[in-house]
């Protein structure tokens, strides 16, 4: 149980660092100097110390939403097997329940965005719900393939299956991995679906929803955003690169697991930064095509599993 708490806190603590690392990689690729790796922490501290300014017509939903979103992400961080597979919360949710958890956070964000009654809030809200609606089938099909291979939808079982079993080439998992990365980009508001550092409101999706937030509410929302990205990356690592996670009753495996996690997150982050640098943000109505392609890849992965691996 203590380990569970540690994992949850670790996920929350690591998230801004992952964001910092992502920015660092992007800066290296774009031939400029990045702010220090700890900059996101400083930003969070700055925001937490500032006064909260609420719109006159913001309701209790608006004030409650950042807490709920953050809590959902912390729970997700505790469930995904970051460093160990036998934690008590891990059985509390399988991948479908994780998707539901993310949906809960997203719905509260969307509702909070509509609360203030500005044009930008509802714009961001509807775009975000659209992208989510199209990404969820793709995400589900991505999860289908490992679920078929390991006969289970619980992440811990999948991790156990893949890391303990013989090393095998799974083309279906390769397709699913590509589709997963595409869905990750869509769901976490990265380029090419959304630009997290844009200042033009008409191009915003995620940023438009948190436009009204300030002070500690904004800090919580930003933290939750970074945490969501970290958790998604962790899910990807658990599904496609599961080696190195500590197995049940293996206390000595924990340091190795930490190192492995850091290495994998760093690699994944660098890869994401590369993708972001190479691609340009696409029009909002090209996003259905993008997600359709992810969906087709995931379906292809599943079909390939039936065709050649079953």
């Amino acid at each position: 149980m203590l380990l569970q708490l540690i994992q949850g806190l670790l996920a929350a603590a690591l998230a801004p660092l992952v964001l910092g690392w992502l920015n660092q990689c992007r800066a290296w690729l774009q031939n400029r100097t990045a702010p220090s790796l700890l900059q996101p922490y400083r930003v969070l501290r700055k925001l937490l110390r500032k006064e909260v300014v609420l719109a006159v017509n913001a309701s209790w939903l608006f004030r409650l939403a950042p807490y709920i979103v953050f809590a959902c992400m912390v729970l997700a961080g505790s469930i995904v097997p970051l460093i160990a597979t036998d934690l008590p919360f891990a059985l509390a949710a399988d991948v479908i329940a994780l998707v539901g958890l993310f949906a809960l956070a997203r719905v509260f964000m969307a509702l909070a965005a509509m609360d203030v009654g500005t044009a930008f809030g509802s714009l961001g809200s509807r775009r975000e719900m659209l992208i989510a609606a199209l990404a969820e089938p793709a995400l589900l099909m991505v999860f289908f393939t490992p679920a078929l291979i390991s006969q289970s939808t619980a992440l811990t079982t999948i991790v156990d299956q893949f890391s303990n079993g013989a090393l095998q080439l799974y083309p279906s998992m390769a397709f699913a991995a590509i589709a997963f990365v595409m869905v990750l980009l869509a769901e976490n508001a990265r380029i090419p679906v959304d630009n997290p550092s844009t200042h033009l409101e008409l191009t915003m999706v995620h940023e438009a929803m948190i436009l009204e937030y300030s002070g500690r509410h904004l800090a919580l929302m930003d933290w939750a955003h970074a945490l969501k990205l970290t958790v998604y990356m962790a899910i990807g690592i658990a599904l496609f690169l599961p080696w190195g996670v500590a197995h049940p009753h293996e206390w000595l495996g924990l340091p190795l697991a930490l190192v492995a996690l850091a290495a994998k997150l760093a690699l994944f982050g660098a890869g994401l930064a590369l993708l972001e640098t190479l691609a340009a943000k696409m029009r909002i109505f090209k996003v259905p095509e993008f997600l359709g392609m992810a969906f087709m890849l995931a379906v292809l992965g599943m079909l390939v599993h039936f065709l050649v691996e079953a």
Partner: protein
Amino acid sequence: MNGPLVGQVINLLAALMLLIAFAMLAQRRLLRLIHLFALQGAVLTLNTLVVAATLAQSHLYFSVVLNLVLKVIVLPMILIRLVDRLDLRADAESVGNLPLIMLVAVVLVILSFNVALPISELAGTITRGTLGIAMASVLIAFLMMITRRKAVAQVIGFLAMENGLFFAATSATYGMPMVVELGIALDVLVGTFIFGIFFFQIRETFDSLDTRNLESLKDRE
């Protein structure tokens, strides 16, 4: 070599073949389509090479060389030259109702797998799991021919069908008799030349390579 590893590599290449077939179905730009076709030929060659090397089917080495020369080098070059002379380098066409076409393609894959199931159980090769994918590639290439309007894209679909056919032969019976293979290769080569000649004719008559123009040859009453 490790038996299952060979099987896995062949499966991986088969999966790539399927991916390329789908990608060709959705690709709008002509030049990229030709590159995809060359890539498909390369994957096919690699697959044949693996089978030849690890399963001691030495007659497949000739097929490897033939494939490499014909499908990866000569045919794409001919097509690119054709495209240059027809001034189609920047050509792109809209692919119609893409989600529907993709759905039909998925249905075709499922169908071909189920049809191939009894046959692959009869075949004695290590690659029999890939027979379904091979048939699916043929059907998807056929679908590509149906859903495209520009003539060059239809020809590429025809050539992709031949690719799929060869892949099916490799996976079911370790290749075709050399005579048959040479015959098919010759047919394909000559066919491409003739297509090229026809393209010029069509373009002269209609000033475009849109095959829907051929409908105007219908007798009107």
